[in-house]
């Protein structure tokens, strides 16, 4: 057990280091962008009609104070960390004075819902089909599935998304093409709302599943076709162990170990949002929020989103690492 606590401690240290470096990089990058949120706001305010230079200078001064952009970069850096420590990313600069955290919390359920469902569906389907294809190598149906997966895999997913939009939104208009739920609908926990939610998520989810499937499929297929040649599989076959048992407990179980790591990585990446998918389908998630905040030069919001996703990715990877020994007993004794 002492071995495990040493492992746990070093792993936690790694986690802290990764989070620290990641947040620093996003702080530097956002503050190095040429877009100035103050100038953006002034430009917006002075778009119509003329304002005297003195008034503009005063506006600039008060906006700087408001946005917390006063002081040297070092002071800004320190106050940024003070705020991060209590989970406060300050007010959004583009949707002033709504706090950044409120905006992020509003967007997260959409993105997580969309991506969690599609990632899990993709992972399960891809691994099952890939596992079957690797084990029953002579099935012509599964070979065909392999060709399909290989054909779909390199297509950029926005192309697939547009294709789905054209087919199900225009040629055969059965599904809504934009938004998270029907406009003007009351957000209540009832059947009509849930149905509308599902209907709106059908296209974005299918586009993500269609494109993501190929990767898991091919990965699992090649893992399985290696594991199939392992001695313990041959031996189980010679022992007359039931085929289904061999496939599940011998072949799949051993191939799944690296795939679970992959799942952890893509689950962590969920918080980044599928930026392009959300754009194409007008989905009110984190991806859309991130794009608009970058355009508006909204430091605080960009930093808030990147910090949340850095934390999310690192935490999921950490959790999976800690759970790994349950999956592969050989890790336990290290």
């Amino acid at each position, binding site marked *: 057990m002492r071995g495990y606590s040493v492992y746990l401690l070093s792993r936690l240290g790694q986690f802290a280091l990764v989070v620290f470096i990641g947040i620093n990089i996003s702080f530097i990058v956002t503050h190095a962008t040429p877009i100035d949120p103050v100038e953006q706001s002034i430009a917006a305010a002075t778009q119509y009609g003329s304002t005297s230079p003195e008034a503009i200078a005063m506006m600039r001064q008060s906006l700087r104070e408001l946005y917390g952009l006063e002081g040297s970069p070092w002071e800004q850096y320190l106050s940024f960390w003070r705020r991060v420590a209590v989970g406060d990313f300050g007010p959004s600069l583009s949707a002033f004075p709504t706090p950044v955290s409120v905006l992020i919390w509003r967007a997260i359920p959409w993105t997580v819902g969309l991506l969690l469902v599609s990632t899990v569906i993709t992972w399960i389907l891809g691994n099952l089909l890939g596992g079957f294809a690797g084990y029953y190598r002579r099935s012509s149906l599964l070979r065909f599935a392999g060709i399909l997966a290989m054909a779909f895999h390199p297509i950029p997913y926005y192309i697939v998304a547009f294709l789905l939009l054209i087919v199900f939104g225009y040629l055969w208009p059965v599904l809504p093409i934009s938004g998270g739920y029907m406009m003007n609908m009351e957000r209540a926990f009832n059947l009509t709302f849930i149905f509308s939610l599902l209907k709106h998520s059908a296209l974005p989810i299918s586009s993500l599943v269609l494109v993501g499937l190929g990767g898991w499929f091919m990965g699992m297929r090649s893992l399985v076709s290696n594991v199939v040649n392992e001695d313990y599989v041959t*031996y189980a076959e010679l022992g007359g162990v039931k085929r289904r048992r061999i496939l599940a407990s011998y072949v799949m179980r*051993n191939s799944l170990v690296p795939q679970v790591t992959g799942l952890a990585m893509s689950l962590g990446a969920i918080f980044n949002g599928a930026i392009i998918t959300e754009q194409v389908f007008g989905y009110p998630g984190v991806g859309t929020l991130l794009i608009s905040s970058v355009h508006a030069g909204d430091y605080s919001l960009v930093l808030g989103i990147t910090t949340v996703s850095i934390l999310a990715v690192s935490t999921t990877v950490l959790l999976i690492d800690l759970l790994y020994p349950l999956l592969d007993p050989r890790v336990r004794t290290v």
Partner: protein
Amino acid sequence: MAPATAAPRAPAKENGKAEATIEPVLVVSGLRAYFQTSSFGVEREVRAVDDISFHVGANEIYGLAGESSSGKTTLIKTVAGAIRPPLRVLSGSVVFDFRGRRVSVYDSDPQVMDEIRWKHLSYIMQGSMNVLNPVRRVRHSFVDFAFRHIGRKMPEFMDIVRTHLQRLHLTPAVLDAYPHQLSGGMRQRVTIALATVCRPEFIIADEPTTALDVIVQNGVLAMLRDVQREIRSSIIFVTHDMAVHANLCDRLGIMYAGRLVEEGRTADVFKAPKHPYTAHLIASLPRIGYVAARKGLEGTPPNLADPPSGCRFHPRCPLAADICRRQAPPMTWSSPGHRVACFAAATGSAQ
């Protein structure tokens, strides 16, 4: 081919064994299994098992010897019905007789074979250290392989397994271990326990002790022999280690380049080898008190994709005559229970 190839012999008196062999448990006749591959239109055929016939009697340990790549493993894989492409069986038959139940390996449904496996026919694979599923506890292997054959309720079944393990000097605690937590020798003993827990009539053992040091090897062999005596099963035992053969096997078959070249009772083969290859194999063994340097045999085993004409041993054979290059020698009986495929042996000059 020689008419005598497959004929099981009348019960010869086996060394020290009371039981006489009337009906063989396993009859292999005219077995040919080639590796056939074709890549970019180039057909390649490796004749790993070429026209082999032999039988194994009840309660008998039959040894298969020969150097690496002589086709030993391929032969027993073919016997066990463990064929995977590119290996293909071209002709011949493998028939087991499990106390009256005849099973022809290449004419039976896969379901029948699955039912036979482990109950009547078990296998100890080469590299038996790596045959246990690395992500599951040893207990699950026993359940997967043996539970359905023993036909008891789970607690009773586990009791049987525990008793069996104790008989093989293994603590029942290994059941809760993962394979990587056991030493190599323990894993091999677990594998032997796994292969014998259903008390099968026939066990095929492919170099079960090759990776072990001699002390552990000795223990494992003694254990295997004890189990064999107790459950009265037949064993095909493959190893390139002649010393192991001398200690363990009742009868011995020598393979060279995919063919059986000599077969007889172990004592006879060691005392009076008929085939020049066997003679060299035995002459290379160290003996206590004999200090002269051991002679090795010149050359290497032939490439089985393009074997030599005639007798496959002729390029390395000191006695090779003209006929050996042109014609493959048939198996002929040189004395009761002892047969050899060599022209020189037929004229009595192999010694």
